[in-house]
């Protein structure tokens, strides 16, 4: 806002230069697929937006959340530690997000967090969810289970589950879905490392999502640090649950709420970090595990979003 006001008060020539500069910056940001800091503060000049032509990336960037078609652009996760890492509060909806797990046996935790995100998205947006699942994922991790989904806070009736035969078909299906603005979200599930799912493929998905404003969530299990164009990448590992009540302690305590350790290893819309989160399936909200309760060692720092090492992820480092 401030910069925008500044622009209009300066001399015509200076204004022109600044306009140009802002436009160039925006274009670079477009090419890199990220949101420039000044662009999100200043409303985009109309002329600049018009001149950009087909670069649909720029369309939504200057527009405040929630004004276009009454579809919210950002989704608040309602957990301060999670919301605070983004440039503005909440997860961008018109984008590609990755939820990854390093070990394939952690598929429960990875699916859990991904589905929790999906559940939040499904609350915020209407429509059906296109779920595209690779054949390996079904074999390795099991198939979706309706009654479990329902308890978890996801209405299975809103899912359209697609079983492609090959990776190319899966990517094509995801892209087709991401083009269809009537959908609530597109969810892709991939097991293991795949050559087809490279930087280009994820970039295509990202562009589609930005055009149609349909969030795409990609769940990749059993991968290390594959290149991706996704806006965020959440690395999920399981985390011991907090027992429901303290009295019932013994050699075999009851299993508590689902909880995970989540590391935001890549965030082009803010800064990376990590946290321990719990999912309250009753209310459909994320919770931070209370410190006073039996938190296992290692999660002590989980409250404060400790920035992870710079380097790979420094691009999206917010200031």
């Amino acid at each position, binding site marked *: 806002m401030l910069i925008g006001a500044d622009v209009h008060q300066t001399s015509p020539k200076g204004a022109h230069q600044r306009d140009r500069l802002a436009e160039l910056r925006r274009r670079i940001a477009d090419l890199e697929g990220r949101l420039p800091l000044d662009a999100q503060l200043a409303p985009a000049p109309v002329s600049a937006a018009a001149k950009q032509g087909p670069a649909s990336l720029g369309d939504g960037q200057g527009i405040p959340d929630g004004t276009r078609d009454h579809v919210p652009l950002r989704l608040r996760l309602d957990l301060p530690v999670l919301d605070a890492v983004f440039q503005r509060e909440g997860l961008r909806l018109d984008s590609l997000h990755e939820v990854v797990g390093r070990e394939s046996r952690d598929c429960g935790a990875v699916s859990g967090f991904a589905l929790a995100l999906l559940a939040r998205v499904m609350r915020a947006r209407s429509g059906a969810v296109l779920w595209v699942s690779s054949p390996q994922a079904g074999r390795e991790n099991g198939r*979706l*289970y309706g009654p479990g989904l329902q308890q978890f806070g996801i209405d299975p009736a809103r899912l359209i589950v697609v079983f492609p035969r090959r990776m190319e078909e899966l990517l094509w299906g995801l892209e087709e879905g991401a083009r269809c603005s009537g959908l609530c979200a597109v969810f892709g599930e991939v097991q293991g490392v795949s050559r087809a799912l490279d930087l280009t493929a994820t970039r295509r998905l990202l562009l589609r999502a930005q055009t149609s404003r349909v969030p795409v969530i990609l769940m990749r299990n059993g991968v290390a640090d594959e290149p991706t164009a996704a806006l965020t990448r959440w690395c999920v590992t399981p985390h011991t649950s907090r027992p429901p009540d303290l009295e019932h302690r013994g050699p075999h305590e009851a299993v508590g709420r689902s909880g995970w350790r989540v590391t935001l290893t890549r965030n082009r819309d803010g800064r990376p970090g990590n946290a321990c989160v719990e999912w309250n399936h009753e209310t459909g909200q994320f919770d931070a595990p209370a410190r006073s309760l039996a938190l296992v060692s290692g999660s002590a720092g989980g409250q404060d979003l400790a920035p992870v090492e710079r380097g790979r992820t420094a691009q999206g480092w917010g200031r």
Partner: protein
Amino acid sequence: MDRILRRLNAAAPHKAGDVEPPFAVASRTGNVHRLVSLNRTARALGLKRQDNLADARARVPHLLVEDVAPSQDAALLERLADWCDRYTPLVALDGTDGLLLDITGCAHLFDGEEALLVDALSRLKQQGFVVQGAVADTPVAAFAVARFGEGRCVASGAERAALSPLPIEALRVDVDVVRALNRVGLPTIGALLDRPRAPLANRFGLELVRRLDLALGHEKEPISPRFAAPLVVAERRFFEPIGLVEDVEAVVFSLAGQVREALERRCEGGRAFELALFRVDGAVQRVVVGTSRPLRDAKRIKALFAEKLKVDESVLDAGYGYDLIRLAVVEAQEATGQQLVLSEEGAAQADADLSGLIDRLGARLGLDRITRLLPMDRHLPERQTEFVPAALVREDAVSWVGFGGADFGLGRSEHETSPSLEAAWQELPLELPLERPLRLIDPAEPVDAVAMVPDGPPLRFRWRRVLYKVVRSEGPERIAPPWWAGNIDADVSGERATTRDYFRIEDEDGRRFWLYREGLYARETTTPRWYLQGVFA
């Protein structure tokens, strides 16, 4: 009255040309090889069908012989039948070497029956077949004239005259009957027609009289076509064959426009469309697409086929080009007034349309791969939900509201609970745990578990070669075998299904699994087995 075109095809491969070497196809019956079919040269040399192969070889040493290949012959006949689709949708196979076409109402499109017959025969001859054909009012008469007679087009009511000179075999009656009739001096059909019927039936059986009636049209015999006649058909013939995908798509678009009009008149929309591409060399390629919803928008029909053609490049092997393209509606469903897309805005809406997406995905991946999760009212957990093709599902059938009930009454949907009920739930001090896993491993995988006897939770278990130590556990939740289903739920080995005790467990690292012990210790089994069936969040 059906006008029947009959074509006799000697199914053996014949080669065109004036000076062919003598060639025969032989088949083995018992211990004797006999000739099944011969070419012209071989016949000119005095060989006949059913000759012994050894004798034939002795008489014609340079005879070329090929073994009979019934499956290839059948495939060839099928291909020819496909090709004959250009004349009528009702094509039936007739034995192993004939085709039966019901051309009722089609002949005028080809300038009459005579012209149609000539056209069909000459085109088939061009393809290198030796063909005989006839048109008649009844299938039996057409068969007789085509195989035993010379007359090609039998005028309506002229069956008597046409059939009279033909031998009795032409009626396709039992060999014994033919022999008996010949013995008593009745060699032709004409001789039978003048006889009183009762003695004939008495002596030679009712079948003979029935065949006569069928031949003369006193009794009707339906033919059984290979495919049901499509509901709506639009086709276009080309003087010059076309071969480019873009051209084919453009033709599909214009045909789809015609189909749409017909569908609108019927107040229907198509659920399955078939595109038949007739290649110049006689091959016919068929592409079928299904839709999730009655459809008659030409643009979308074209888009579906374009999608399909894109993925199956093998389908569109144009060769020398197509000379006939036909679009048929195979399956239709009632569809009342749909809004026509008029503006750009409308087109954008169509893009956002869910059923359009399902159709597009289905055209490329197969409609059976686009599924919805349906709740099932079943007892065993792994059967309580099923993936059903989305195209088969009515929207109101996919309701998970109130699913679970007594089984796990805690499952409730976030949206459906009334506010007061929600408040009541929130007053409960205890949070209800997740009772069912997010993902189900089906079939459940056996694990090696160490557990407390007789019905304690597992202490550690090995799954996929990794050892897990159980830290927390909940259970058992006992699910008895469905006694009412008898042995249906017995597993593959045929054993009776046993009681399952389910446990939710968490390992040291926080992975949560759903395990069950099969069989009650000491009551149903001495060594209960453990299975891992689900993964929790």
